[in-house]
């Protein structure tokens, strides 16, 4: 049984992600963020159910669609919002933006905008843990999508992790699409989880809309990793409610009925139903949590909006720890 504190954390986390993404989209459309943003609402149960097992000493690698991973790993929403707005108070001082939010103090290795590229980083974090004999307290989790499953570096990473028995979890969020490309077109196998057999590791198909299922499957995988038994591949079937990026129009490549069917199984709604049905948390409590989160996200937006842009000279900071040549280039 999951204790109440954890349940509340899960609810907070899922709702925080949901609201963050919605506010973030709003801000993007208002022109308060630059470039492109990739909302993860709909998929909240995945990072929540997995990160529920992790501490700041565990490491996660993330993707272009990384806000949910960040939030579940404990990153502060105000700094995240500021980062997305390109502000100096953001996690990366405005240098990274939506696709590169990182917080090393929280075990968050950074979102990565190259599809697949963060997978071996999580393997490397697991290598560090094993090298230092700290698997019990530190494991790696690589979050990636169904689209990323076609990248060669995933194959390499799973093979490496298997032969080196590294404490790492490969968490494939199959949200059915990579941009507009459906996974039935691009992925040559029915369940990506089945590919685990190629590496002699467990592979589990998980309902990614149900945070309890995710929590359970992740628990097994985390246990295995911490016990030094090596990696696991989880395939979490899920759905993104919004388009691939803020301006993407989903109706061009998927049916509204499909979206509706997934929305029926919404992770937040089903969580609410379950905990209230089973009288684990009261409706009032849930409402008060919602309110707290709403306030938090509101403040995060204000924080982002009112924060300063990075000073121009910071353009040249933090390329190297130490580099004697002038980085300003030639002007």
């Amino acid at each position: 049984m999951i204790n109440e504190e954890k349940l509340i954390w899960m609810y907070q986390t899922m709702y925080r992600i949901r609201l963050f993404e919605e506010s973030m989209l709003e801000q993007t459309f208002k022109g308060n963020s630059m470039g492109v943003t990739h909302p993860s609402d709909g998929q909240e149960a995945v990072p929540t159910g997995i990160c529920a097992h992790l501490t700041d000493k565990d490491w996660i690698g993330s993707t272009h669609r990384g806000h949910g991973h960040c939030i579940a790993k404990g990153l502060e929403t105000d700094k995240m919002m500021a980062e997305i707005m390109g502000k100096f108070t953001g996690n990366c001082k405005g240098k990274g933006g939506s696709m590169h939010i990182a917080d090393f103090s929280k075990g968050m290795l950074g979102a990565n905008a190259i599809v697949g590229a963060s997978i071996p980083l999580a393997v490397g974090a697991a290598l560090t843990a094993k090298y230092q004999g700290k698997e019990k307290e530190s494991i790696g989790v690589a979050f990636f999508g169904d689209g990323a499953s076609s990248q060669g570096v995933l194959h390499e990473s799973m093979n490496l992790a298997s032969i080196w028995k590294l404490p790492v979890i490969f968490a494939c969020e199959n949200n059915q699409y990579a941009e507009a490309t459906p996974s039935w077109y691009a992925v040559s196998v029915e369940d990506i989880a089945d590919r685990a057999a190629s590496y002699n590791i467990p592979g589990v198909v998980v309902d990614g809309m149900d945070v309890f299922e995710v929590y359970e499957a992740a628990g097994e995988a985390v246990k295995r990793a911490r016990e030094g038994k090596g990696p696991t591949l989880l395939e979490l079937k899920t759905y993104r409610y919004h388009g691939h990026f803020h301006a993407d129009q989903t109706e061009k490549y998927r049916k509204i009925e499909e979206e509706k069917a997934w929305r029926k199984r919404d992770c937040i709604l089903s969580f609410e139903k379950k905990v209230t049905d089973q009288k684990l948390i009261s409706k009032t409590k849930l409402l008060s949590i919602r309110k707290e989160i709403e306030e938090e996200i509101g403040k995060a937006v204000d924080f982002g909006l009112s924060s300063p842009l990075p000073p121009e000279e910071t353009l040249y900071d933090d390329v190297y720890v130490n580099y004697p040549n002038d980085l300003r280039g030639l002007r």
Partner: protein
Amino acid sequence: MDKKNKLGPGFDVPGKEIRYRDAFNNTLREELEYDKNVFIVGEDISGGFDKETKEPLDAWGGPFAATKGLVQDFGVNRIMDAPISEAGFVGAAIGAALTGLRPVVDLMYFDFTTIAFDQLLSNAAKSRYMFGGQTKVPLTLFARSGGGTGHAAQHSSAFYSILAHIPGLKVVVPSDAYSVKGLLSAAIRDDDPVFVVNDKKVINMTSFVPDENYQIELGKGRYLKRGEDITLVGMSYSSVVCLEASEKLEKLGISAEVVDLLSVSPLDHEIIIESVKKTNRIVIVDEDNPIASIASEVAAIVSDKAFDYLDAPVKRVTAPHTPVPYSKGLEDVYVPDSNDVVSTVKSILGN
């Protein structure tokens, strides 16, 4: 962004003012019609399939809609959506090129070139040579480069210098709708592997484009403006910057000649040397990072071949030696602009 781009030559032929992206799309269409061995492969270049009918939906029509509308007319065999596996499908495209087809690869963002880099360098660039001339590799690749659009460090690279460095590859850097039409058509018809770099900042600009089909010879630059006092060399978006700078300089009484490279490999040595012999001064403007760049190469060429004609230090105006930052304020400083060019010109003219 949709501002008027005056780079077009203003032919006395039928044509119209269109956007770079539309010229690009039209040219792909023309080349698909011209040669049945031409096909295009890339992620979401049609974009999406109907679950029941399995028919392509053309939902995306490619990043920046480069291939929009093509799958309807040419079908999925010629407009092939690929999974996210750049090394795999670039390798397959090379294999297809080696066996008789003319693949055109959409690599989406220029940054993703790195993933297919081994296939490009070890196979596409070397096959003809290491097999003693037995084969050719009629492959074209394209992708979007450059900062200034808030895409951050991993979606804003402009390292065409790296590709130009590689023997066996050709690299073109169109600067307007007119040039991309001629260069893309020439690239697809060329029997060597050619990379077409599309700067994100130019793809929404418009210029005059003749209706007729034409090719621009790979390896030939062009004068965008004639002048007497200094040569400004640009490529892709930095040619736009040079032209803008030349207008500012004109107001200061400085007559700048603007050379638009169009190709960086092969590189038009003649036009650069010819211009410097006249103006005796040069500033090279390049959005790529500075070290071992095309800007360096042009500087090296003039300091060798036009040495006796140089009256001032050879100057480069480039991006800094840093990745591309996300935040708008920083990104604006990152990309060289006409003010940077003007102040550099003034410094060597002693103003």
